[in-house]
């Protein structure tokens, strides 16, 4: 069954076309890879799906509901969670608190009720704590809960991003270049983590620069170039597509671009 | 621990303040006024008047052998700090307070004096509400807005023959208080002001207000405000071609008026709190005062200094001499006081609200100085 369907999605910034007539289906339970060279629109696509950008044209339907006009928080509440490529953690908060914030989504009650109600505050934190705990264990961060997020090693920050997104208990998880900047062993760990999360039944879309990682993890992949979808199909087949080869390997990857927003 | 340290620090500071002024035999005279902030020049005048009086009395042997020690507290011309300042005088166990500048500050700090049962002679605030029968510990020596505004209204019509009077006033308590009484007094005489416009104390450009006044074509313009707004209004009024003669009350009674509006202020008629040419004693005192205090960071400002000086020397000191420092007796003595003061024509006495009843002084600006008014 189709979980999310985007059709004819277009977006441009000051005349520059960032997304051009994108059609995209994400099936329930799948792990979809999204690849493409730098500046091809991968992150922009995620920003549109998560409500950070509003589309100029096109529709996005998630579980039977039009969401293309929704705000960020509304979309999260519908069940789409995401991570950020350039790590957007709450730096001055502890690892546990980072995940707790997200876990609060699933906890009843209002902010003011917490303050003036007698025990609900403690209970809300407790409930959220339990959810957070589970996500931290899953991502292997259970030992560093007390650290400030900004004091975590880089690789662990990556996993914290994922833990935080998981605490939202989403239906669809968007992972934005989670492997960027990781060394090979961290990469392997990450791959294992994604597989485990996927095995629990979560639908995942993975934007990734590393083609091998995508072919290793994802059955299906789409390829973007200059804001257009140029291929869609079995990941092993897609990467062999000559258009993809040209778009993808025709240019030199520089370290700087890989980190650019 | 942080908190304990802090309390320690505060306590130490408090006791130091106590120790400095703790000489049991001395009579303690409290002075509160704004010696920083907008009232600086008036507050310093008040302090100087007190210093001068106290120095003279102590040089002459004090009061029955007891010296007077001054406790001067700056209230930064700020009502909130004024409360703290008065609290500090209460805490330092002063025997009475003579001072206070600015109606807002005095209205705020007199509540503290009233609650503490401390005699307070107000020198530099004119709001009528300061002296009421309810406030039994508060006295005032300078005239209220009501007396001044009434007198100038009367003088404007009867002595200056004005027919079309416009009013421009500061929106603060001084200006509003004056305006209300002035307009009411005019009405009693049978005249309505042709325009009444307020401004804010901090305003610099008055063309908007003055344009409205010019439309009304007045022959007299009452300005109820203080320096620097008042001279700015005069200058700009002349620039705009308003030819009306200016009148005003004590807010204009400041030598800076002539410095800041040398041409425009000529001919202004106003009530004032003090003028050195009323009698020879006043002249002698003023000369002594100017000599003693010129060369400081502030130019000598005799008006309020004279009131502080006279209130201390001629009212407070004789009362302490006759009634001692018991606060209730002191209060009653001040309330009964009747006598003469230099620069005040005739006798002066306190009415039952604690207001000193007296004749005021009318002056005119001429040749860059205040001259005794010689009109009809």
């Amino acid at each position: 069954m189709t979980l999310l369907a985007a059709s004819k999605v277009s977006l441009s910034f000051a005349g520059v076309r960032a997304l051009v007539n994108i059609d995209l289906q994400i099936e329930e339970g799948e792990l979809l890879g999204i690849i493409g060279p730098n500046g091809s629109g991968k992150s922009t696509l995620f920003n549109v799906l998560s409500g950070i950008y509003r589309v100029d044209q096109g529709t996005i339907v998630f579980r039977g509901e039009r969401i293309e006009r929704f705000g960020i928080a509304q979309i999260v509440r519908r069940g789409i969670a995401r991570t950020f490529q350039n790590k957007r953690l709450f730096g001055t908060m502890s690892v546990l608190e980072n995940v707790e914030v997200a876990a609060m989504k699933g906890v009843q009650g209002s902010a003011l009720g917490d303050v003036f109600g007698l025990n609900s505050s403690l209970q809300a934190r407790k409930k959220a704590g339990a959810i957070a705990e589970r996500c931290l264990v899953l991502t292997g961060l259970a030992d560093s809960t007390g650290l400030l997020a900004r004091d975590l090693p880089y690789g662990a920050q990556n996993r914290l991003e994922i833990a935080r997104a998981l605490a939202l208990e989403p239906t669809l998880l968007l992972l934005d270049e989670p492997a960027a900047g990781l060394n090979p062993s961290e990469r392997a760990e990450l791959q294992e983590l994604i597989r485990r999360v996927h095995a629990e039944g979560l639908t995942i879309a993975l934007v990734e620069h590393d083609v091998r990682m995508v072919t290793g993890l994802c059955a299906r992949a789409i390829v973007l170039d200059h804001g257009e979808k140029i291929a869609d199909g079995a990941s092993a087949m897609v990467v062999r597509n000559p258009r993809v080869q040209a778009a993808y390997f025709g240019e030199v990857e520089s370290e700087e671009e890989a980190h650019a927003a | 621990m942080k908190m304990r340290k802090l309390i320690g620090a505060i306590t130490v500071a408090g006791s130091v303040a106590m120790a400095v002024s703790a000489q049991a035999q001395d009579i303690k005279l409290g002075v509160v006024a704004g010696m920083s902030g907008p009232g600086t020049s008036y507050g310093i005048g008040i302090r100087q008047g007190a210093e001068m009086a106290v120095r003279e009395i102590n040089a002459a042997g004090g009061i029955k052998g007891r010296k007077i020690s001054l406790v001067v507290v700056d209230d930064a011309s700020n009502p909130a700090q004024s409360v703290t300042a008065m609290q500090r005088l209460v805490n330092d166990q002063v025997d009475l307070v003579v001072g206070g500048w600015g109606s807002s500050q005095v209205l705020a700090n007199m509540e503290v004096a009233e609650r503490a049962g401390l005699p307070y002679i107000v020198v530099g605030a004119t709001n009528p509400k300061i002296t009421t029968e309810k406030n039994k510990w508060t006295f005032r020596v300078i005239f209220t807005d009501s007396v001044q505004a009434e007198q100038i209204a009367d003088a404007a019509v009867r002595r200056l023959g004005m027919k079309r009077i416009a009013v421009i006033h500061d929106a603060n308590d001084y200006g509003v208080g004056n305006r209300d009484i002035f307009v009411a007094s005019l009405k009693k005489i049978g005249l309505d002001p042709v325009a009444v416009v307020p401004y804010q104390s901090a305003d610099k450009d008055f063309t908007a207000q003055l344009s409205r006044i010019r439309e009304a074509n007045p022959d007299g313009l009452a300005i109820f405000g203080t320096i620097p707004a008042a001279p700015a209004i005069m200058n700009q009024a002349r620039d705009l071609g308003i030819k009306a003669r200016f009148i005003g009350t004590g807010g204009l009674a400041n030598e800076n008026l002539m410095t800041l509006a040398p041409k425009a202020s000529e001919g202004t008629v106003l009530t004032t709190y003090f003028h050195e040419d009323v009698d020879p004693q006043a002249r002698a005192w003023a000369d002594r005062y100017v000599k003693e205090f010129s060369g400081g960071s502030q130019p000598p400002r005799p008006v309020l200094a004279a009131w502080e000086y006279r209130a201390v020397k001629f009212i407070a000191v004789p009362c302490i001499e006759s009634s001692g420092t018991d606060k209730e007796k002191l209060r009653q003595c001040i309330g009964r006081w009747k006598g003469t003061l230099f620069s005040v024509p005739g006798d002066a006495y306190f009415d039952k609200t604690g207001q000193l009843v007296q004749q005021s002084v009318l002056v005119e600006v001429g040749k860059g100085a205040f001259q005794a008014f010689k009109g009809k």
Partner: protein
Amino acid sequence: MAALHQRWWFWAATLAALLALPALAPQYVVHIANFILIYTLPVVGLGFLTGFTGRVSLAQGALFGVGAYTTALLTTKLGWAPVATLVPSVLMTIVLAVSLGGAAVRLAGLYFVMATIGIQQIVWLVLMNWIELTNGPQGVRSIPAVGLGEYSLETPQQFYFLALVAAGISYFLAKRVIGSRLGLFLRALSDDQLAASSVAVEVGRAKVTALALSAAWAGAGGFLYAHYVRFIHPDMFGLEPSVLFLVMSMFGGYRSIEGMIVATALLESATEYLRPFGEFRMIAYGMILLLGMMFFPMGILTLVRRRAGAPAAGKD
């Protein structure tokens, strides 16, 4: 050291010192202590905004004034009992803050500062000029003291206990706010607003709630102030106290309620220490602000904490 404030004897000693103060210290010191206790309310309230949403407000002095004027006018003009006006004062302050600043608080940080300057000036000008309602520059006089049954809190010593209880309640409620999900949300959005909304934090609502809470604290502080000083004037609620409250909340160090309270105590008593400076007092005050920000941008108290070995929470 780091756990000092978690030991019972620390609290017991602090409490004992605070309770004994009016009996041991001279009245003048009690008077200053009362101002400190009163000011902790608007300062801690402001902390919800500055520390926890990264939003600087220069309108806290005005909101403090709204609380003070509400109770002053209700008691003097309508004859209400002071105690009965606490809730209306707080509500009035919240309503005004949210109606004037509710839209602005959603703006990016610097734009919010700009808006609060407008709010500050507007409130002050209205207090000054709406004479029929507020008495304008005459101020409001003869505000009754708070009475508890037969007992009326007139002297600084009597008032002290009310101020202490109020500051205590404010402290514990503030701790609760910060420990609650709202505190978590506010810290999250001050670290990264976009990330906060992508984890389902209703950013706008959280900010308006923070504004409302900070106004509530200011309103309650204003209530106390009016019944302690018993005379209020628009100039007591101009830009100057707004700057002072802001500085108090920033000098205490980022996100530390205890720090804000200590900073309030230090800065308010500094006004007294600086009194001997006379004409130079304001220069000294300006220098404290300037040098404090130049050399301890995360708050003067972070210095103490850093030396104590506890991690100083700060924003990069």
